[in-house]
């Protein structure tokens, strides 16, 4: 299967009013004390687990993404998230959301019949 993406790709898409500090690195280095809170998210056809996470505005967190089956995408344009999750290779996204709201995040790497409804919510309070 052709994925068309190098592993660990991330594209910053935010604009001034919705600036999100976002970095993507994998394999991820060992963390020192005081490093961001880590939120684990698992993907499998055709759902994310958990289905909703809550972050705090201006708090830096790391999303650690893994897949239990095939390659998935993890995309939320407003937050500047555009990543690929490949089997056997956890992907990490570090972000600092600047704006509150509820952001639907989708799998944008076609993964089968139920792909169109594979999504979760990132709530920023």
């Amino acid at each position, binding site marked *: 299967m052709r994925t*068309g993406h190098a592993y660990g790709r991330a594209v910053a898409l935010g604009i001034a009013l919705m600036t999100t500090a976002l970095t993507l690195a994998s394999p991820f280095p060992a963390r020192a004390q005081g490093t961001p809170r880590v939120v684990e998210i698992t993907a499998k056809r055709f759902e994310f687990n958990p289905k909703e996470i809550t972050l705090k505005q201006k708090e830096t967190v790391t999303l650690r993404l893994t897949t239990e089956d095939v390659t998935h995408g993890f995309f939320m344009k407003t937050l500047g998230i555009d990543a690929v999750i490949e089997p056997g290779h956890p992907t990490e996204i570090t972000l600092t959301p600047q704006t509150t709201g509820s952001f639907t995040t*989708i799998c944008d790497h076609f993964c089968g019949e139920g792909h169109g409804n594979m999504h979760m919510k990132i709530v920023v309070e």
Partner: protein
Amino acid sequence: MSERVDRRSFLKIAGTSLGIGALYSVAPLLGADGEAGEIARTLWKKNGEKLKPFSFVQLSDTHVGFNGPPDPLGTQAFERAVEMINGLRHRPDLVLVSGDLTHDSEKPGEHADRMRRFKEISGRLKVDAVHCIPGEHDAGLDGGALFRDAFGPTFYAFDHRGVHFIGLDNVSRAKPEVGPEQIAWLKKDLARFPVSAPIVVFTHRPLFDLKPEWEWFTSDGDEVMNVLAPYQNVTVLYGHIHRHHEHTAGGARHLAARSLIWAFPDPATTDAKKPLPFDKDQPFKNLGLRIVGEPKARGAAAGRPTIDEVELTMREYSGTVGINQFLKEGAY
């Protein structure tokens, strides 16, 4: 049904229904003055095609192989669309199919069978050519390999009676994107045309951010449209969203065709991306046509086709009776 369905009354028909696609009628550059007319004559000399008015139809999202909720009709809407096209008084030259010809299947051999079934039904079309590009359900799992075996390249261009048609693939990379190789090909393809050339792009996903949370976008759509930006007569036809939509940006018109399997709701009215429920009393709800008339000869819109959006209600012309009446009268 004894009433005559002439074009005027047909245009008055209103309602919602399962879509049959979009019918376009184009008289490229004929009657146009100045530079456009000169281009028409030049193209005629170059490719030997006699320029005359022609029409074409856009069909989309037939999802052959899908048979379940919300719509249990399988290929019936697709087959009725084919019958309807064949019954038109003015037969279209071309049919463009803007993706999701089939519904994906991981059962060995099943997806290939669905593509054969699509070709069997579309093979009944009495037109000069049927041009298809893939949707993600055709090509998202295998990078387009099966589609290429069945239909040929996933992106390509051709000329027809003075109009340049470009089929773009924004699904085979699994992500909603066209990709740098195809964009480079597009630049090269367009280089030989003057900026006033009439161009019809057909693709599956919208080339702009219609609703990213529903994956109604193409991540490098802006790059594609930047390549097309110098051209003055660009129409982009797409599918994927299973509903009619019109959008204008940078001088290009973007038009979505209805599906032939089920309809999605207006995303402005709901957060839930769920197909509209099937109505057994109106099984072909949302059946519709988009008719593009002859281009204006003068003014700001010179050389661009005019578009009438038509929806066919099954309230007045229900079920098979309605379709047959329309076919018999050859309304358009």
